[in-house]
């Protein structure tokens, strides 16, 4: 193993796709359960149970937000509890995988 545990922190990588309109609520949930960092990409397109969602359509623009969160398993569980019940009602997906956080001067997970 080249990269040893001195520089790596094992975390969960959460990936959420959510409707543009629900992103504000998502942010509130994050605040409530004290998520300390996330990255989002607005204007993602996609396909799912509701068919195509095209961010640039003139008549029917539908935008997805793609959110990436590196967090502890604990926080991931909290997120699952606060969000999962509402996912798919409000549309989108919620994936969890493993990742390693490379240590740096500041910590935002």
């Amino acid at each position: 193993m080249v990269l040893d545990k001195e520089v790596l922190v094992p975390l969960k990588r959460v990936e959420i796709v959510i409707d543009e309109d629900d992103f504000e609520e998502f942010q509130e949930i994050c605040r409530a359960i004290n998520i300390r960092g996330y990255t989002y990409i607005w204007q993602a397109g996609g396909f799912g149970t509701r068919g195509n969602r095209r961010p640039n359509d003139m008549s029917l623009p539908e935008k997805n937000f793609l959110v990436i969160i590196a967090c502890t398993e604990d926080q991931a569980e909290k997120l699952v509890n606060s969000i999962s019940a509402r996912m798919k009602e409000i549309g989108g997906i919620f994936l969890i995988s493993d990742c390693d956080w490379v240590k740096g001067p500041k910590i935002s997970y």
Partner: protein
Amino acid sequence: MSISSILVPAVLFFALGMFACIIKSDLKFPPDMHKMIVIYLLVGIGLHGGKALSEASMSSAIPAVIAALLLGFGLPIVAYIIMRFIGKIDPMNSAAIAAHYGSVSAGTYMTAVAFLNGISVDYEAYPVIMLAIMESPAIIIGLILAGYSRRVLAAQQSSIGGPAVAAEGGDGHQKGMLKHLVIESFTNGSILLLFGSMAIGSIINETNMTKIEPFFDKIFMGALCLFLLDMGMEAGKRISEFKDVGIFLVIFGVIMPIIGATAGILIGHFWLQYSIGGVTLVTVLAASCSYIAVPPAMRLAVPEANPSFYLTLSLGLTFPFNVLVGIPIYYGAAQWLAYNY
């Protein structure tokens, strides 16, 4: 009216846009450019209308308002009945499509204004109020029709032993949705821009109006050309989807504007008694079909409907029909009515 006088630049640019799309040109408009031009055009038409209204008598605007509501509530019901009982289209798609035909298209209206300008025909100030008013009622009717259809469907299902869940859930949902959509129809961006700039146009004085007219008036017709160039490309994109829509709906997409136009021209001429230009505009409003305000509303309110149906009909069929063929016909008919009745 010679041939060259009906060669309205805006319409020619629309045709160019469709052509570009059909030959698969790589010509593309930045999406934001479209939004910008729309904002500009709506404000321009609002200011112009507001100024005209401030010079007209307010009380004589009332019939226009009533006519607008009548058309907005009536036309979608007619459209729904035709689709359901002649075309045997399923209820949810019928409701969603009907809402589009009850509402209006500012793009079609502006093209008609460009057409009248090109042949130097005057028109009243009131149709612009109708434009602003007619965006919303059809949305509400669409929602009511969808709610009604859901109940009927549920009754059918429960009578054959199926679950009535959808209708129940739908019912509470329906009320919240109605409230939501009513609020939305007043806070909708384009309606707000139209009403807001109408108000501004009617209260500012001559000096101030003169300062902003070069931007909102003088260059308006040119900017409209770019808008229609883009619309031509948008319409062209939809043509390939005709086959999914089915033959009945394709015919409907041409017949329905003519039905609307007939209602509009009769109301405009016999009841409102406008000039030829004014009657043409009322006719165009009644014949036109929304492709901006109504699609998102129906997507939300009637998720069961297939967006490809209403978008193809509205953008791919009725809009080009009105712009390329309808407007000169409606004008001709208004002229004929004026001379004969």
